[in-house]
């Protein structure tokens, strides 16, 4: 595949990836710090080149329901927003999950609660990975740490979303959305033809031909016995994701006495803290979850048998730390360090926290 070098913001990379990955429709509503996604799309006018539909909706409620409509007819559709907007989308997300519809939702997280701040945060981890809306469901959650991953995960997102018929959330934050980095883009993937759509989304309500029964996309089932069956099916799907789709990266873990567990922007700050630590003779590594659901429980469990302690680094009051503790099962100390409300921790603070909370506490 021909690779072309670009320099782009994370938000723009999502938009460029949408166009290049054969996305059929983007529906969104402006909110800082992700507005560049739709701004970029509107400036690029992909409808003239690929036929991709781009529409500014009247609210996030509406944009997620536009996504639900588009997904229900088998199209590759997506939206993006930031925390308060994503809260408004929770209704649509649980309907998407319930009706088993593929879609991509990019959340460029900002500090909360409430209207909060517009600066980067990771305080929506619980919302993204533990449901968010009502009912037992899971989003597939990808956590990019670079502009390149913002781009790549749109492609990966389609794959996962259609393979499992499940909404995929790309959970980033204001820092990754706003930073500009090198990005290698590949060739354009054409949008599906009607024939390809029918082959790739045979379940969809794309218009009933004479030779088959009508299709119904819904999350409603009045018979609770059948609804329990549907829930079993969903749970089996989530377990399969846990079996097959866990993604993570390790850095400097081979000889590590301690590890940081951090995703997204925090992982990059932790990486810098590793350099600082190693300069001081502290053998510390990093495990970076790339999928937050399914969560890399097994590798964390393995590390918990080997290392002297784990520090999670999150821009939150401590959310992912709960999953890390569950995986570590008290085999080693697991502590959390975080700044929040839009403040980003410095590498020095992270290293100090490791020394204070783990190394000296022993």
């Amino acid at each position, binding site marked *: 595949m021909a690779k072309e070098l670009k320099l782009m913001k994370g938000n723009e990379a999502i938009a460029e990836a949408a166009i290049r990955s054969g996305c059929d429709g983007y529906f969104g509503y402006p909110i800082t710090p992700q507005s560049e996604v739709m701004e970029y799309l509107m400036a690029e006018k992909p409808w003239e080149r690929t036929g991709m539909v781009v529409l500014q909706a009247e609210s996030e409620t*509406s944009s997620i*329901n536009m996504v639900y409509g588009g997904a229900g007819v088998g199209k590759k559709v997506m939206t993006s927003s930031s925390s308060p907007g994503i809260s408004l989308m929770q209704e649509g997300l649980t309907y998407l999950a319930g009706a088993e519809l593929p879609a991509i939702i990019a959340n460029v997280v900002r500090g909360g609660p409430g209207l909060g701040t517009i600066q980067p945060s990771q305080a929506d981890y619980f919302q993204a990975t533990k449901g968010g809306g009502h009912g037992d469901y899971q989003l597939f959650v990808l956590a990019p740490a670079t502009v390149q991953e913002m781009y790549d995960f749109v492609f990966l997102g389609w794959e996962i979303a259609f393979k499992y018929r499940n909404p995929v959330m790309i959970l980033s934050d204001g820092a990754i959305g706003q930073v500009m980095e090198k990005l290698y883009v590949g060739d354009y993937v054409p949008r599906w033809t009607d024939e390809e759509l029918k082959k790739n989304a045979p379940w969809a309500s794309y*218009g009933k031909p004479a030779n088959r029964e009508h299709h119904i996309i819904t999350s409603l089932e009045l018979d609770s016995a059948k609804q329990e069956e549907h829930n079993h099916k969903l749970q089996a799907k989530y377990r399969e994701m846990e079996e097959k789709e866990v993604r993570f990266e390790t850095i400097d873990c081979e000889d590590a006495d301690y590890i940081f567990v951090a995703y997204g922007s925090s992982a990059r700050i932790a990486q810098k803290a590793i350099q600082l630590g190693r300069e001081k003779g502290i053998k510390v590594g990093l495990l970076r979850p790339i999928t937050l659901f399914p969560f890399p429980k097994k590798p964390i469990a393995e590390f918990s048998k080997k290392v002297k302690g784990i520090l999670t680094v999150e821009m939150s009051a401590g959310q992912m730390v709960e999953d890390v503790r569950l995986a570590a099962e008290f085999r080693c100390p697991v502590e959390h360090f975080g700044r929040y409300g839009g403040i980003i921790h410095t590498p020095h603070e992270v290293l100090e926290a490791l020394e204070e909370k783990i190394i000296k506490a022993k």
Partner: protein
Amino acid sequence: MFNPDIVKPENLVYKRTDVLTKAVMHYCPGCGHGTTHRIVAEVIEEMGIQDKAICIAPVGCSVLAYNYFEVDSLGAAHGRAPALATAIQRLFPDHHTFTYQGDGDLAAIGTAETIHACNRGENIVIIFINNGIYGMTGGQMAPTTLIGMKTATSPYGRTVELNGYPLQITELLAELPGTYYVTRQSVHTAAAVRKTKRAIRQAFENQKNKKGTSFVEVVSNCNSGWKMTAPKANEWMVENMFVKYPIGDIKVDGEKVK
């Protein structure tokens, strides 16, 4: 039931449309939903657009509409049908996406979606059943409930002081430049059924010609919710509902009538 020994094909004057499924409808006897379903299905059959028709069912009495229309369908979250229809029609511009919504769905919780879809002039058909009450949840007050009307949540009758005024959303939508055809009909007499069918046909023809939003309100009774027999409910509807919600075209070919 079709008995070939009695009914000879040459004598056949009426046949159930294949655009309705064989499922038995759950609507109360005398309710306007069944008739309106049939009319929509007949129009789809007559226009030969079954393979391109997409039904968006709401939340409300017609939540299960997708079980009755033999077309590909989606069940929307409460009030969101016009958002779904917007996306689908833009993604499949030659399809015939229509929403089928009640007064609570369209004029209360879905007001924003309704107004903005109409204001953008989305090339969709909206069928709006207005019976002034929430039927499915057991007869609570709707935005279109008349002043003085008793419901489960206005047990002493709706008052302006407590609840504000009945919402004439159809007139409001007719003011928006995006709507091309806005009409109010009913299905309580054979003549009314014929008129409503013409209106719904017009709406789908407009869509075929990519004219923008076509909006057909059907004022209907809710004999269960109104706690009346069906014939009595129809009488009450004519005497009361038609005063606030007068029957007739409001906007034709993009121009306000009168």
